[in-house]
């Protein structure tokens, strides 16, 4: 199972956290692939161009993903009623998992096709990581104007551990 990327959107449609994991190339040892995945966090500089995506696409991807899940969620609510939840969709290349909290924070994860439903995993991330490290942090801003986002070392580290150890 491979996790490609993970996004958090707040209730103002702002992407407050994004993280991409690049699968390890087959011929490279794990030691040399570590810095590549770490570098991809800082996706504002010129680094992503090195990894096959320009900075424009990483920023735009978040917006496109938000638009997609927002439209699909509204479609699902219209057809299935207010208590219906959009869970996931898949194409022939990837799978997108979606979880929305009662406070309208949206968690989105893109994985490969072999992965099972990630709804419980996203709930775990929300309950055990986001609430514990971001919400309960008195220094963390409640709103994220101007795309400040979740800038929290503990959260990022534990998310990294959760995805690499628990999910793969």
């Amino acid at each position, binding site marked *: 199972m491979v996790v490609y*990327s993970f996004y958090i959107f707040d209730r103002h449609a702002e992407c407050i956290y994004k993280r991409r994991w690049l699968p390890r190339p087959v011929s490279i040892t794990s030691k040399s692939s570590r810095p590549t995945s770490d570098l991809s966090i800082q996706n504002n500089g010129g680094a992503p161009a*090195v990894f096959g995506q320009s900075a424009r696409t990483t920023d735009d991807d978040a917006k*496109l993903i938000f638009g997609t899940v927002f*439209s699909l969620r509204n479609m699902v609510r219209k057809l*299935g*009623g207010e208590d219906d939840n959009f869970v*996931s969709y898949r*194409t022939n290349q990837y799978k997108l998992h979606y979880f929305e909290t009662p406070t309208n924070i949206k968690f989105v994860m893109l994985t490969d096709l072999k992965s099972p439903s990630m709804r419980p995993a996203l709930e775990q991330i929300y309950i055990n990581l986001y609430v514990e490290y971001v919400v309960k942090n008195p220094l963390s801003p409640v709103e994220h104007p101007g795309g400040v986002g979740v800038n929290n070392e503990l959260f990022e580290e534990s998310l990294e551990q959760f995805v690499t150890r628990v999910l793969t």
Partner: protein
Amino acid sequence: MYVSNCSTSLRAQTNKTRAVYSLIIINKAGGLVYQREFHSGLHKLSTNDYLVLAGTFHGVHAITRSITPRLPLASTTTNPTTASHSTTASLSLTSPSGTTTPTASTPTASNNPNNPAANTPSSSAYSYPIPSVPASGLEFLETDKFRLTCFQTQTGTKFLLFTDPFMANIDVVMKKIYELYADFVMKNPFYQLEMPVRCEAFDRHLGSWLRGRI
């Protein structure tokens, strides 16, 4: 929550495991050409809302294809050890070709726009997760209450089938619907392409086939 889900699923298996809620056909321009409900289970929308839904889905379908994750082609470049940095990659590409037999001189190769995968700093070198097939848009969508299967034909027409989430063999149903569409809509000499489907024979056969299945 999971316990109640299980009990409802058991009940669902007894009476509506094969429930097809509704079918929507969207033409290649995103217009709604056919909408029919077979089982109640989803909310009824107004005709206008169905038109909006068809257009929205058409757009979302295209976006889901474009946000397919792109994986850098680090492992398949000519020199696998240099994938971590673009400048080192171009440097180390020049050094072996200078020492060994220079079949293609690196300056010309790097200027050659027809060969992007070989020498550009991997900004265009990526592959989809499953490189053997072209990326498709949304195919299955799952919610708590229904499952949406989308089948896109070669010509861009989309068939949207709303079913029970526990229904199996949806592709068989989809194939049959496409077959009926080809037989009774496309072969109807009075049918105008891209226009709403008003073919009585299609309605009749579709209804009777789905009823016969259940």
